[in-house]
Every structure is written in C-alpha cells, then in structure tokens.
C-alpha cells in the first residue's frame, strides 16, 4: 500500500454536505442573539448567575445547602453556649479564689514563708562600732 496513494484516495472522499435547512435556523438564532435584548426587570444578574452556575448547578446547590445547614447548626448551638458561659461566671471566681488559697497553703507547707507571711518590719540592728571607730580614727 503506497502511503501517498492511500492519502490521496482518502482526500478524494467527499464529506457529507450540511443540511440546507440549517442555514436559516442557525442564522436566525444568531441574529436573535445578536439583537439587543428587550428590557426586562433586571435581566443582567440572571444571566450572570446562569453563567456562574452553569458548569455544575447541582454541585453549587449542594454547597449552598451545606452552608445553610452549617449556619443553622451554628445558630442552634450558640444559645446554650451563652447560658453555660453566664452560669460559669460566678463559680469561676470561686474556683480562682480556691486556687489562690490552695497555692498559699502549698507554699506554706513547702516552707517558703517569704511568699506566704507578710514581711515583718526590720528590727533595728546594733550599729557596728567598727565603722564608728574607723570614722573617729
């Protein structure tokens, strides 16, 4: 089989002609699309949304439903959290106080009185006579 002859034979095969009636159908559709659209109530957003959602409208709808569920659940669970927070305010102070007390007791037991007992005022020490002598001398 000669390659050139084979290709020439294929080239000679006539392709199927386009159906005649399509001409007016296609051209009319194109002309309608090319004409300015009659004014309707806000047609632009609709077409914009269609363009945006066209590739996978079901996926977008699913995503929207998922978001609605998430927001719904969020709204439903927010209220009890606030109640719990409000209830827990007063005990939290008590817990803090108890913790402070406990820390103080632990410090006492560990024998670090400096942290627990208030500092006593310093008793006046006997003055060094050496320094006085040095000065006098």
């Amino acid at each position, binding site marked *: *089989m000669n390659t050139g002859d*084979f*290709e020439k034979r*294929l080239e000679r095969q006539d392709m199927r002609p386009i159906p005649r009636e399509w001409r007016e159908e*296609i*051209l009319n*559709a*194109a*002309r309608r699309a*090319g004409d300015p659209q009659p004014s309707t109530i806000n047609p632009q957003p609709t077409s914009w949304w269609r363009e945006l959602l066209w590739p996978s409208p079901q996926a977008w709808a699913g995503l929207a439903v998922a978001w609605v569920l998430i927001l719904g659940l969020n709204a439903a669970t927010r209220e009890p959290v606030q109640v719990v927070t409000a209830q827990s305010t007063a005990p939290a102070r008590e817990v803090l106080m108890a913790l402070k007390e406990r820390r103080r007791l632990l410090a006492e037991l560990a024998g670090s009185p400096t942290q627990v007992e208030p500092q006593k005022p310093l008793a006046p020490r006997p003055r060094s006579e050496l320094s006085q002598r040095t000065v006098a001398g």
Partner: protein
Amino acid sequence: MSSPDFLARLYDDHAEALFAFLLNLARDEVDAKDLLQDLFVKLAKQPALIEGVRDERAFLVRLVHNLAIDLMRRRRTREKNYERLAGETVSLFAPSTDPDERALRAALTEALGELPFEQRAVVHLKLWEGLTFEAIADALDLSPNTAASRYRYGIDKLRERLRPLYDEIT
C-alpha cells in the same frame, strides 16, 4: 464586517467545512449543529472577534475546535462516554453509488472514530481541509512538529485499519 449580512457571508463561506469538521469531532449530528449554532451566536454577539482576522477559516476552525473540546468536557461531566459516541455510526461522507467507495467510506468513518480526538482533528484538517502543518498548528494551538506527528500516528492507524479493504478494492 459587522453588518447583519456578515453572518450570512461567513456561513456561506465556511459552514460546509466547519460542519464536516464538527461532525468528525463530535460524531453526532445534533451536537454538530448545536456547536455550529453556538459559533454563529458567538459571532453575532461579538462581531469584533473576527474583524481584522487574516485567515477566517483557520480562525473559525480554532473556535469550533474549542467548542468541541468544551462539548467533550460536558459529555464527560454528564458521564457520557465520548469514545463510545465516537464509535457510533454517523455518516461523515457523502453517499456514493460506487459500492467500493461506499464500503471504503463506511470503513473510514469507523476507523476515524477509533482515533483519539486530537489525532482525528489533525487528520481531518490535513486531508479534507488541505491545511499545512503550520496552519493546523496555528488553528489548534500546537507546534507544527506536534501537528505533524499526530497526523503521522493517525494516518498510520487508518492505514493499518483499512489495509485489507483498501488492498481488495485497489
């Protein structure tokens, strides 16, 4: 250029060839018609697209090729197997009274359907549009070497596939 008649002029000059190309790519007459209509709707909405274009045919081939690729993606999205459609019977060629030609055209239609989409596009443009590899490369956004190699692979497959029939009828 942008007068209403420019659409009719474009249709008369190019629709025949574009239809054959689209039919070979889409392997479905309804889809080929839809894509052709999409093309003319696009041109009607944006007449500036084709203004100043030097090679109208190559430009339009590029547009319909892109539309066919989009169709393929939509088919995949809809889980319609493109290769299954490619194998379906569609009459790409004009009817012939010669039984040998008729047999060859039927076998060729089937063999073309077995080629991968991009090889089929290149083979079609080379054989039935008579485009050079440079022009094909330009239209399909390829390098000329890629266009040439796709053509070579495609034509080799066609030759192997059609060899028994071809040898018989020549």
